């Protein structure tokens, strides 16, 4: 029976890695389901504050995003350290908010235009100045439904 003799007697058998792909696929599917593709590449810091009286945004209705915050570390040389507004992929000035909303509306079916909600993603350390200006611009262009997008958490500890 020498044909079937074990080569070695001692030593640990190698650990089977056959189930590793299964584990990784499981992780992969979890992330695919739980996340969404980034809408915009952020050039600003965007740590959202916390609040607990929040409502979910209706995904069936159109949503436009406006980001406000200080430029992130890579862009400080170009854009400075003051709060800036990001529309789509660019940092823009307050005057361009109206044009942005007009462009967002033009891309929508006409019956959906009045339901457009503007989601304001503002960094928690931003000052109110820029946001106030943006709100005035939104009022001028009659985009009145807004949502201060926040994380869920205890607001008082902000």
């Amino acid at each position: 029976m020498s044909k079937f003799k074990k080569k070695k007697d001692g030593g640990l058998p190698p650990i089977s890695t056959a189930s590793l792909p299964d584990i990784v696929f499981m992780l992969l599917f979890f992330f695919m389901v739980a996340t969404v593709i980034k809408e915009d590449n952020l050039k600003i810091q965007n740590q959202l504050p916390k609040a607990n009286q929040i409502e979910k945004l209706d995904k069936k209705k159109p949503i436009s995003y406006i980001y406000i915050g200080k430029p992130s570390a890579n862009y400080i040389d170009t854009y400075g350290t003051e709060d800036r507004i990001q529309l789509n992929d660019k940092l823009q000035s307050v005057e361009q908010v109206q044009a942005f909303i007009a462009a967002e509306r033009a891309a929508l079916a006409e019956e959906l235009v009045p339901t457009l909600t503007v989601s304001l993603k503002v960094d928690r350390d931003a000052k109110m100045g820029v946001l106030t200006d943006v709100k005035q611009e939104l009022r001028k262009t009659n985009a009145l439904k807004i949502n201060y997008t926040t994380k869920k958490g205890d607001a008082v500890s902000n």
Partner: protein
Amino acid sequence: MAKRSAPEVNAGSMADIAFLLLIFFLVTTDIATDSGLSRKLPPWEPDAEQEKVQIKEKNIFALTLNSNNQILLTSAGDSEVIAIKDLRARAFEFLDNGGGQGEDACKRCKGNRDPKSSDNLKKAVISLANDRLTDYKTYITVQNEIIAAYNDIRNREFKKDYPKLEMNFVEATEMYQDPVTDVKVKESLKEKLEAIKEVVPQLFSEAEAKRD
């Protein structure tokens, strides 16, 4: 010699492929944060056309945020600096006061009935003014606490008016917004939610930020 079985496919690189995909998804995606405080802005009107609305001073709960994130509360003829953690209780007390007499009397209010504070739920106005240098996080906290005070009252009234549903206003709103909810249930919920919003309106006014 026995018949050889088909050679096994080497699955060793499968893990690598899966890792690559996993890392790709980790980098390109974002956990969705699509919830927040919904508000409605007042329509834009040039200054000249603005009507002056007369509101009795006792019906106003005026909050002012300064550049140091301190909160000044002016109500019932008094001004004081308050802590953010007291805001919710103070706002609730103000809304629920019900100090009105005669036709202004508030049947639903359970407050102190202080004649110096608000008349009834439909008259009580909360106003908020902020400085341009106020921090956004403070502003959000204040907004959150004001909404919380309104929600507290709405929850109470909803439970009182529709005890059979065994849920409060916030839960009912969530159920109404949930796409899974049946259309008929939604219809009946909408009616009830609107009724409560009618009884406890959110009269919230924001002044434009000072210091230009």
